[in-house]
């Protein structure tokens, strides 16, 4: 059940080559899909352009539900890229997992806490950056003492808690999905013909559910990103 990770040390940093591979694949898939879908743009949208315009409106609605478009418009591209990248990442681990030489190579990049926490930290970091940029250092600092000054320690904890929950929620959902798939396919299906037959239905069901979970998690990640952004950049909330 437990597979080794292909870790390589380079320039004093540990690289998990499996993650590097999957990040690259996910990014490439997102980029290629987006590129192919937006090659033939027309005033009268057709085919994939419709789908991408729908995604744009979807993210726009997410942003609009947390802050006004004048402030939130700048996060449109960030939200779009996040939701696409996380969705594709979540889907990558579903059809199969490649284990070579007892080393897990193919999986969802988001099934690794390091990756999800990186994304989460990036989002929270960006929210601080935009908080300072849009409201000024003074207003940004005063925000930590509202509504009551004695809540300051809680506010500090909240920032770390946000980062952790944002990253670990995604990681937990996707990793659990993959674990169960691995158990079903790698465990039950190997226990003879009966096990194989018994594994078919739950595997299909769980894959379907994982697609649902993966979509929902991508949406939630994008939504929470915008919520945290709104907390930092909005003047009233």
């Amino acid at each position, binding site marked *: *059940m437990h597979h080794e990770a292909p*870790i390589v040390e380079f320039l004093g*940093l540990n690289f*998990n080559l499996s993650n590097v591979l999957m990040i690259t694949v996910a990014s490439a898939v997102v980029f290629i899909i*987006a*590129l192919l879908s937006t090659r033939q*743009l027309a005033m009268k949208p057709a085919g994939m352009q419709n789908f991408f*315009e729908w995604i744009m409106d979807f993210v726009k609605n997410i942003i609009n539900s947390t802050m006004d478009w004048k402030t939130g418009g700048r996060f449109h591209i960030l939200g779009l*890229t996040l939701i696409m990248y996380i969705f594709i990442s979540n889907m990558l681990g579903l059809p199969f997992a490649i284990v070579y030489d007892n080393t897990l190579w193919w999986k969802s990049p988001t099934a690794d806490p390091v990756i999800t926490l990186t994304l989460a930290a990036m989002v929270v970091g960006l929210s601080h950056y935009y908080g300072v940029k849009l409201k000024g250092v003074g207003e940004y600092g005063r925000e930590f003492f509202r509504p009551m000054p004695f809540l300051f320690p809680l506010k500090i904890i909240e920032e770390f808690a946000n980062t952790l929950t944002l990253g670990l929620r995604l990681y937990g959902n996707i990793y659990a999905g993959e674990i169960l798939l691995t158990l079903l396919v790698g465990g039950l299906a190997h226990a003879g013909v009966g096990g194989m037959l018994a594994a078919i239905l739950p595997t299909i069901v769980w894959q379907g559910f994982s697609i649902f979970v993966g979509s929902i998690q991508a949406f939630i990640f994008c939504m929470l990103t915008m919520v945290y952004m709104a907390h930092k950049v909005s003047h009233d909330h």
Partner: protein
Amino acid sequence: MLTNSLVLGAAGGGFNGGDVLYQLVMFIILLALLKKFAWGPLMGIMQQREEHIASEIEAAEQSRTEAKKLLEEQRNLLKEARTEAQGLIENAKKQGDVQREEIIAAARTESNRIKESAKLEIEQQKEQAVAAIREQVASLSVLIASKVIEKELSAADQEKLINEYIQEAGEKR
């Protein structure tokens, strides 16, 4: 061991700083590439469509008001033409009436004139005829008288007649 592996999973123990760096760099690259090649153009075309639709709506609105204006204008023109036609007909009728009266009056005067002149002429003719008859009667009577006188007037009778005449003339004066 199993629990440990389930919890930490693919992290595989130890902290993979390289993954963090790689993920960050890749995400930023992806963001930049998508912005340049996908989101940018897509947003552009959506913006363009929005503007197109807005301008189309504006144009439609404009043409509608123009059509409305034209319709109003045409309606006014039609009304004007109708009143004008009405006026023309009225005028013509009036003129016709006037002309009829004139013609009738002219005809009446003309006929009166002709009647007068005819009357006058008849009168004249009558007078002439009477005069002619009178003249003829006079000459005839003289003729008859002279014949009669030639036949039967004696000297005495002539005398008597002359006297009578003289007396009569004297009485009349």
